[in-house]
């Protein structure tokens, strides 16, 4: 039972991460591979606050989101002036910088990470149970879904897609491409940071590997497999792509090989979808054409 709850919790966190990244990749055409780093910032800020100050859920999640936004802005200001593959390379660089920081800084506990993180307090009430934490993660995913849906269906959502289609044309219409990208970057970082906070409380221990480049690629795999430009697709992909590797754990495979198998599995999916089904499981095309 505990295991099922844990997996459901993980699905909710990854659904939030995938949706937040889809706003950049799918809607705006910004292929960012810094999302795991931004998520890590949220996780580390939460861990440090909970260990040294207070595990107050709302306060730490808020500060995790603020911290993620702040770091995201450092990435955004130079990176958003670049286009396409140059943007991707810049975000790759930032991902590696963030990972190195987590790995080498004293206060982040280096490769060992941080552990013994207290359970979160919500209005003074300690949330110890896995079910409680799962409920928090699902709550965050629902909020993220509702707000992202609102944004993508409003005129600003149309503008995001217009930027994805042709930046030059958007600026020729008197609309600042930088401002649009900047604001969606901030919005996305809020949820990545908050997801990091809930991840920390769920595991009560974090280490840098959870926020590595591999992780960024896993999140982007969710976006691509689910369908770029589809929030439902991101949620569906999070469910399937967390469940399938978890199911593999029940196969007679040695523990030492399992994580590599997961990466191979994700890699194959990425290649397969890019080649045979670009629109993903639920592509934007179906949304538009229905």
């Amino acid at each position, binding site marked *: 039972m505990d295991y099922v709850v844990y997996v459901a919790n993980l699905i909710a966190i990854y659904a939030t991460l995938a949706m937040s990244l889809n706003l950049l990749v799918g809607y705006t055409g910004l292929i960012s591979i810094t999302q795991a780093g931004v998520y890590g910032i949220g996780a580390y800020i939460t861990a440090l606050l909970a260990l040294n100050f207070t595990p107050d859920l709302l306060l730490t999640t808020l500060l995790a989101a603020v911290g993620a936004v702040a770091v995201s802005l450092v990435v955004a200001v130079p990176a958003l002036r670049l286009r396409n593959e140059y943007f991707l390379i810049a975000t790759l660089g930032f991902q590696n910088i963030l990972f190195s920081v987590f790995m080498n800084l004293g206060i982040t506990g280096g490769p060992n990470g941080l552990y013994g993180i207290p359970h979160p307090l919500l209005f003074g009430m300690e949330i110890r149970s896995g079910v409680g934490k799962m409920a928090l993660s699902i709550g965050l995913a629902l909020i993220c879904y509702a*707000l992202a849906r*609102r*944004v993508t269906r*409003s*005129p*600003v*959502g*149309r*503008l995001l*897609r*217009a930027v*994805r*289609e*042709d930046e*030059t*044309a*958007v*600026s*020729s*219409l*008197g*609309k*600042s*491409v930088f401002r*649009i990208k900047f*604001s*969606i970057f*901030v*919005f996305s970082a809020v949820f990545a940071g908050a997801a990091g906070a809930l991840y920390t409380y769920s595991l009560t221990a974090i280490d840098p590997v959870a926020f590595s480049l591999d992780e960024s690629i896993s999140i982007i795999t969710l976006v691509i497999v689910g369908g770029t430009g589809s929030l439902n697709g991101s949620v569906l992909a999070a469910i399937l792509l967390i469940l399938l590797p978890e199911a593999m754990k029940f196969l007679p495979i040695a523990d030492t090989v399992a994580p590599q198998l997961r990466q191979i599995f994700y890699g194959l999916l990425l290649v397969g979808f890019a080649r045979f089904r670009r629109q993903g499981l639920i592509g*934007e*095309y179906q949304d*538009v*054409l229905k």
Partner: protein
Amino acid sequence: MNPELRGREAILELQALSKHFGGLLAVNDLSFSVPAGTITSLIGGNGAGKTTVFNLITGNLAPDAGRILFHGQSITGLPPHKVARVGVARSFQELRLFNRLSALDNIAAALPQQRGESIVASLLGGARLREEARRTEAESRDVLEELTLGGQADTLAEQLSYGQQKLLALGRLLAAEGKLLLLDEPTSGLSPAMVDDFCRRARQLVQQGKTILLIEHNVEIVMSLSDWIIVMHQGEKIAEGVPEEVRHNVSVMHTYLGITS
């Protein structure tokens, strides 16, 4: 400049504009002005620097030297979205439509100053925003109707025929509400009937108070439509005048019309 045009205010003025790409001097010490309320054409062979001039005006390229004035105010070095906001709208030779957006959304995205185009405003919502969205849709549908694209409102731009795409690009330009319209080869690839339709629309726009700066290869269209013609060759202005003068200018015939005497 002939007396009639001389009296008009210049909506756009280029002063000694230069731009080079590496060793290539794409635009060399170019000066001209576009009288308000006219159709002015920029002609010249391939590589004469016409599109570069457009890119300099719209801020997509920064000039190496020279100034650009719009209504007497310098817009030199402004980023493209700011140039557009002062009233310069442009169309592109390669159209640059939002391909995977519906025709309606292509127009709606072009309408200026929508509060709903901010994330915070769209999250807060409210009656004003809903009213704005209704107005945007109604205005966009009007633009499509006027362009005979009313039936294609929900079709993705990439699924329209080429002629329809050209019309949609024009619609997007009009929705942007510029005072000066820069049109880069608006008639290329169009059927004769559609070319006529374009010419009628262009004259109509000028009557409505717009000014048009046109890049056009079709000599007939240039001669019949233009109030003023500027001839470029290898980045320089080699002649300008009303259509009759340009037609009789020998060097123009050599370089552009391809007539050898």
